């Protein structure tokens, strides 16, 4: 070959050509797969909301077609978005708010955050599904908490996470942990109308209506869930007409 393969000019040219080709290929691929990927993410979000509402089991939802889930979702779910004081923000669609991105974008100032809510209506009964996001050990955690028609008692939860440790923090996404929220009565407000939220505590529950046992060995993830759940209901409780300082 006439070209000197070890010259700097050749090396640089080779690198530039290679990177340009690879970059162009990936850009084309990413753009063309984007709609299919977004459909998957949206579908999962609908599954979580419907599962939290307790109307469907997660396994059944996973077996359903996307179009079917989307149809049920549109029929039975109403959407609202509130500001921190519980006033409705007009013209916003709850489904368009990515709760994790919204949490990250407003992490220094929760007062400008938008608070989406989904209302599930079936057979005259209503459930209020509240999405929330927080920080786990390795990345974001998020969840959907369904309140019953008294707008206070938890009737279902679904949590998920980006990359918590399997067997430890990742347990928040397992049924055993999520059942803690519904096996005994958990309430956001006390009977006297004081706001508690849900705390995650170690070493036994002192206030069983407003507390959940932490996961052993997953302190930081448990704390993250607590920090997410304790103040997280305030804007919604305000929207429901409670006085909260």
């Amino acid at each position, binding site marked *: 070959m006439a070209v000197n393969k*070890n010259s700097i000019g050749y*090396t640089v040219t080779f690198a530039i050509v290679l990177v340009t080709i*690879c970059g162009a290929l990936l850009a084309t691929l990413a753009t063309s797969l984007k709609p299919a990927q977004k459909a*998957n993410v949206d579908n999962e979000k609908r599954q979580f909301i419907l599962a939290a509402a307790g109307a469907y089991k997660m396994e059944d939802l996973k077996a359903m077609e996307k179009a079917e889930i989307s149809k049920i979702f549109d029929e039975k779910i109403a959407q609202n978005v509130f500001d921190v004081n519980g006033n409705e923000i007009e013209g916003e669609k709850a489904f368009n708010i990515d709760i994790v991105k919204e949490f990250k974008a407003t992490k220094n100032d929760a007062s400008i955050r938008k608070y989406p809510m989904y209302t599930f209506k079936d057979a005259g009964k209503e459930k209020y599904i509240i999405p929330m996001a927080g920080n786990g050990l390795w990345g974001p955690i998020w969840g959907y908490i369904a309140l019953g028609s008294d707008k206070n008692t938890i009737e279902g939860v679904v949590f998920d996470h980006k990359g918590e440790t399997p067997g430890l923090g990742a347990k928040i996404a397992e049924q055993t942990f999520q059942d803690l929220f519904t096996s005994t009565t958990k309430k956001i407000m006390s009977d006297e109308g004081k706001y508690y939220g849900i705390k995650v505590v170690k070493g036994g529950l002192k206030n069983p209506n407003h507390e959940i046992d932490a996961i052993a060995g997953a302190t930081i993830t448990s704390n993250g869930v607590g920090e997410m759940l304790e103040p997280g209901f305030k804007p919604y409780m305000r929207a429901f007409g409670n006085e909260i300082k």
Partner: protein
Amino acid sequence: MSTQKESLFSKKNMKLIKDPLNDSNPISIQVLGICSALAITIMLENAFVMSMSVLFVLIMANVVVSLIRNLIPDKIRIIVQLVIVATLVITVDQILKAYVYEVSKQLSVFVGLIITNCIIMGRLEAFALGNKPGPAFLDAIGNAFGYTWILLVVGFVREVFGSGSVWGIKFIPDSWLIDNGGFYEHNGLMLLSPIALFLVASVIWVQRSKNRKLIEEN
């Protein structure tokens, strides 16, 4: 050209496929790519998708690197290999996210980590750089299947004893479980990564007792 075609399936070339399945298996003999073998073998389906991802990346990378082996400047050859592997891995990752979302969530970071899988870098550096695309293709198939069969064995054992299912299909009825008043309990250890280490070690043990020339002298 015809001589090259003929020699593609010659005895020497078939060795490229057979050896990595047994005598120079990337996992059990060379002990490479262990990290992913431990992490994603809880379910057979995950192990299979992971294996197919590695198969795709390894074949494409081996062939591409072999095709341009005479053009790659020596000074940046590792970087060039990395760029090619990374491009392929991101391709796989994007496709999984679009078409098998559930599995891609479970494989999480491990698809991305194929980039650093020693089996791939090892084959590129040791084989593709010095051989024609045909043999490089066979070498990739051999090594990828050497990786695959171990992952599938480990995945099968872990799923059967850990979850009582094969490929997601349960064969142990819920009524057998102690929780439901039965007599059976799934082995929780099977769901944790360390057990894969024991299983891979068992494979190595069985393999070496059957194939005595693999046992080291000392």
